[in-house]
């Protein structure tokens, strides 16, 4: 079981690196959708011995919302805006991947610092992978200009936190967990509406050109 989790974490890390290095928005959305499904499964795999209806419900909800609903919303955003690529991001793609590796290094170091798991339990990759995903999302929000890409960054960041939540705190009450999922869902939805309005009003989605308000 531990090796399955390990493989999933490696897939998560690889998808982070891919997200940092790719410019085509459609591909990025597919990868984020893959991450979402992966995390839905992760919730089940970590608790394989003691599956409860509660757990299956949470896993299914996040599998569907992150794996299917978000991508549909975002793809619609692309269609409306007519943008396919990020044009001239603040930080280039190769530099982004190098930054991603640096973030992985920091996360590995932090993972040894936080006393979340007893030594030798074999799941030492989870905390670093969760933190790397969190940092990747944050990095994308800062380093990309396109509003859609920033929205993607937010989802990735949330994925990182979700990973962290599954493994470090298994026992969050159902209602809280559903509330959180609902909040994230509405957040992406609201961002989608905002993107729609921005696109209509400005004819572009470059957030660095939203710069009238200063000081």
């Amino acid at each position, binding site marked *: 079981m531990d090796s399955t989790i390990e493989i999933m974490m490696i897939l998560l890390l690889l998808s982070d690196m891919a997200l940092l290095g790719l410019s085509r928005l459609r591909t990025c959305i597919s990868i984020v959708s893959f991450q979402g499904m992966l995390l839905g499964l992760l919730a089940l795999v970590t608790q394989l011995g003691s599956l409860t209806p509660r757990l299956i419900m949470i896993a299914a909800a996040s599998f569907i919302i992150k794996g299917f609903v978000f991508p549909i919303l975002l793809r619609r955003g692309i269609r409306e805006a007519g943008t396919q690529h990020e044009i001239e991001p603040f930080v280039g793609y190769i530099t982004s991947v190098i930054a991603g590796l640096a973030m992985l290094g920091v996360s590995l170091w932090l993972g040894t610092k936080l006393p979340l798991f007893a030594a030798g339990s074999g799941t030492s990759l989870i905390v670093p992978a969760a933190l790397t995903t969190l940092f990747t999302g944050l990095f994308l929000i800062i380093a990309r200009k396109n509003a859609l890409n920033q929205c993607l960054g937010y989802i990735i960041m949330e994925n990182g936190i979700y990973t962290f939540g599954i493994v*470090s705190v298994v026992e969050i009450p159902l209602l809280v967990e559903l509330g959180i999922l609902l*909040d994230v869902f509405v957040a992406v939805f*609201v961002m989608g509406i905002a993107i729609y309005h*921005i696109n209509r009003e400005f004819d572009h989605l470059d957030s660095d050109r939203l710069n009238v308000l200063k000081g």
Partner: protein
Amino acid sequence: MNYEIVLWSLISIPAISGLICIFAPSPKFALGIMCAGVFSAALLGLLAIEAVLLQGKILFAAADWLFMDALSAYNLFVMIIVFCLSSLYACIYFHEELLHNNLTLKQLRQFTSLWCGALAAMTLVLLSNNLGIMWVGIEATTLITAFLICIHVSRKSLEAMWKYILICSVGVAFAFMGTLLAAASAKGVGWGSYNALLWTTLRTNAISLNPMLIKAAFIFLLVGYGTKAGLAPLHSWLPDAHSQAPAPVSAIFSGFMLNAALYCIMRYVPIVETATGNTGWGLQFLVGFGIFSIVIAAAFIIFQKDVKRLLAYHSIEHLGIIALGFGLGGLGTFAALFHTFNHSLCKTLSFFAAGRLGQIFGGHDMENMSGSLPVSPVWGIGIFCSLLALIGIAPFSLFMSEFQLIKAAVDSQAWIVLSLFLLGAGIVFVGALGHAIPLAWGTNQKSYTPVTATYFEAFLVFAPLAVLLVLGLWMPKTFFTALNSAANIIGIVGSVAPSGVGR
């Protein structure tokens, strides 16, 4: 009396009236339902607050997931005042916009329903005993209020809204990470899933939490909720959102939403302090953020041209002062809570005046608004006096709370902090006075015909000013006791009453 139902209806009444507002057939109906919802929730709220603050009960509901102790009751009291005044003001403000055809029924429906939703979400934050639900409430306020900023869709308001939603969502996501870490710190203790996130449980058993994890949690929580509270350097969304939102919305943003985020940090402070052995480890960060906010805001206040941006930077300064007070502890906690009330009331009034003057002068540029006192005596007095109160002129109660804060700083011999605070406050004093005097008496290029104000408008200006003045000179005994019991929840280390008391 069944307080369980009272706590439930505090959240559900505004939520239901928000839903009704979506289908409002006319502007009058929408505003009427909104006011009815806000005021009936307020009345029930006062009932519960009376039981908590005057009779010393702690109320619980929903199997301990909702609760009200002195701290939440005090904050709820501040919120009720801000929301009631702002709802009345919103009627005046939007009536004016309707007269000039600046507002459609659809926009008003959107406003009233989101307004009631925001009230429900903020009440949820204050009443939740479960720290996860508290986070859900804060995130909900972000999402609900985002569309309140762009009731009037324009390039500027969209820009402000995008910055607000992105920065605050990311910030609040950090706070969620902190909440998870706080729950993880309780993992070794062996409570069930039910108790791991309950504030009352964590508070009573704080000593057995993992100190390393709770420290990491507090850093994340401080950054996360600090972003929402507008503490520098995490404040970049705040001036934009405050300046672009309609005036009633700016009033609740500044008057209460920032405090709600700070309230969440305050809930964690006693837990973190006890878990780390009462060394003041967590408090030093609050002092740091507080001082930095005061100094940054002071630097920006001098150069402001837009009156609502000026007030937004004042918010950053005052939230910094409140955080500083909490960080100093002891008398500082008391001063910070007192300052919360003073600032909320005063800032609500100043945004009212700024919004109304903006309607009269057709914009918020201070140069175009100069000489406002002869044009609109009531609102001119409102903006001038509230600016004076905000910079801490003597008889107003903001002076008193700042004075207590200085005393707290002297008591704890924090000389560097004290001198930085005085420097910041001094710059703000000079800078804001330089804006306020031309705003009231300056000569205006264009000539405006004087605008008469109704008695109702005069009430909205002079009632808050009178309260601020009276509280500056004399504090009623009940208010003092209430403040003290709220301060004790954050300040003194010990156990809270076991769950179930006061049912």
